């Protein structure tokens, strides 16, 4: 059973699982989907790509940022049956650029699409061990 105690200005409530089973009646304000101030995900309300999305990691801002933006924009706007089939050249350009920076873009086969393409920061331990140099000065 829940119980309450007060320590000066601080109130403390202990609750059991059962106490919290009933759904909350706390009222939350409706979110405005077009809120201009709000941070948006990968796609902005107007359909554009949010290049500043944290989900992209540094893909759009690194040395191959321009190539990445070109490739991904093409893919995003593609209306072909096989989406992005006309964007092969852009993707090739991006791949060529990335090969020049193996430290930043370790070669992973499924690195083409943006959301899984956090090539720089969050590598698996395999790649991290591959690049285990200490020269970051």
């Amino acid at each position, binding site marked *: 059973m*829940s119980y309450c105690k007060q*320590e*000066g*200005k*601080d*109130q*403390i*409530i*202990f*609750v*059991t*699982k059962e*106490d*919290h089973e*009933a*759904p*909350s*009646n*706390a*009222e*939350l*304000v409706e*979110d405005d989907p077009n809120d*201009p*101030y*709000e*941070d948006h995900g990968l796609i902005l309300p107007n359909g554009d790509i949010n*290049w*500043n999305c*944290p*989900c*992209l*990691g*540094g893909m*759009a*801002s*690194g*040395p191959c*940022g*321009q190539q990445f*933006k070109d490739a991904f924009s093409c893919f995003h706007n593609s209306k072909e049956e096989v989406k992005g089939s006309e964007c092969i050249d852009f993707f090739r350009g991006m791949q060529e650029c990335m090969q020049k*920076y193996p*430290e*930043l873009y370790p070669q992973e086969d499924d690195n083409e699409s943006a959301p899984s393409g*956090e090539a*720089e*920061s*969050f*590598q*698996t*331990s395999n790649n*991290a*061990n591959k690049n*285990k140099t*200490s*020269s*970051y*000065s």
Partner: protein
Amino acid sequence: MADLPTTTTYLETSQQDDTGVPSPTINTRGRFLLRHERTPQFVQPAHMSSGPSGGGGENTLYFVLVGATCLAGGAYAYSTLVGDRERYQQRITEIESRSSKPAAEPSTPAKTQPETAAQAVSEPTEASEPASAAASTAVEPTHAPYLLIGGGTASFAAARSIRARDPGARVLIVTEEDDLPYMRPPLSKELWFSDDPTVTETLRFKQWNGKERSIYFQPSSFYVSPTELESVENGGVAVLTGRKVMHMDVRGNKVKLSDGTEISYDKCLIATGGIPRNLQVIERAGDEVMKRTTLFRKIEDFKALEKVSRELKSITIIGGGFLGSELACALGRRSADLGLEVVQMFPEKGNMGKVLPEYLSNWTTDKVKKEGVKVLTEAVVKNVTYKEGKVEIKLKDGRVVKTDHVVAAVGLEPSVELAKSAGLEIDSDFGGFRVNAELQARSNIWVAGDAACFYDIKLGRRRVEHHDHAVVSGRLAGENMTGARKPYWHQSMFWSDLGPDVGYEAIGIVDSSLPTVGVFAKATAKDTPKAATEQSGTGIRSESETEAVAGSVAVGKAAPTPPPQQKEDYGKGVIFYLRDKVVVGIVLWNVFNRMPIARKIIKDGEEHADLNEVAKLFNIHEE
């Protein structure tokens, strides 16, 4: 180039003695000229060599010899000066033609320039300065469309934001430090838990799920060299290390660096962060104490303290806030292996006394003690001396602590030295540069990170010294520098881990002086920071929040441990901080991955009659 002196001048300045013969001046030219003037007179006595003034003849010979030497010397000096002037002119024209090319120039010819220029005898010193300045700007940029002052988290986040939004942007970061931008939280957490003996060199840390990363945001290959910034095709981010911005000319849109270089900008970000505060009693205690005191902030401080922890027998941490408590816990865990005594002292009644309500602060203090730390609460330092090879700390209540090394973690002083030359406002309540809700100080100047005192539309004017705020504000500043015109809206969060059993995330204004309502459930073995990351499969607790945030997992021992000992109380829960009945801050106590709900509640800013109902939204009993 000074004009050759006229004869009149020299005659006027020469001194005359009673004999009517002007005594030699120090200037050979003058002597030469005087000689020349006076020679007819002296020639005459020579004719009287056979007279009683036989000494006159010898004198004559002497004078002639001296005269000839002076003549020769003067002629040589004259030719050298003229020759040097010609050479100097040649060099200047050469340098000017060079500086107009953007190609990178090796700096060694630049260095030899000032040396040879200075060798000229009466060459004014200004000649060497324009030579070296012209040579160095040939190497490095003189103009940056985006200039970021400071090379920390906020600056890096801004750089990334600018590059994402402005294609081909050229961003120049100028930092005092010698390191590329790096994240600070692991310096007092993960790096201490690493098993790798070379961690002080690699600065890499392994998270629970095996993912390893460096504290540097990006390796050096990410950045463009400063000399190539103006020319590289798609722009980039360049970092000028070891340079401090000393002076800011807001009207002229330019800054001056510690080495005299001037860089002009279109848009500028001030992200100078701060420097650790020190206690007056330590500053007054003398060199022997200062030598044994660490003000912890940077990579070099981490390296130094790590070395100290292996070599000395006792370390005392003064300060009971985030940094002090985290360092105490980190060192406390090593204390058994290293035979190290770890003491922590602070004026409050418990760890995090200014952040957590008293009951929780006391509970936390117990946990810290279990990490092997000797905690002295309600400890106010009276004076510090160096005695018999030990640092002796005397407290106001009479207690004495003898230790080998002191770490002062007593707050941060925001770096606002540029405010004077830039004419920017400093906030008297919170410190830091005063900026508006869009982080702008003046037309082309923004401030982000620890140094920014900004207006938060929801919570009022504040200054925040947390990592995620640096990321959020840096990103926002970058957006606004590229025309977004957005106010501070996405509330930043912070977190802390004090050992494997105590971890919390928080958001908003978390001040223990506010009335609080805490809703707690009984914790199970699954509710620890370690479990949180294992379950979510991410090595970085805040990955869902902002990607550039460091891992926050405390590393436990590899050997199987019994389920953590937890009291019935305060295992896990949610604590609401209220101001005028509105929730302005929330602490998620050993409850993870619920930050979006907390953020929503703060954003709403509503008065809730029953906070237990609000607490239900967090499902604290579930994983």
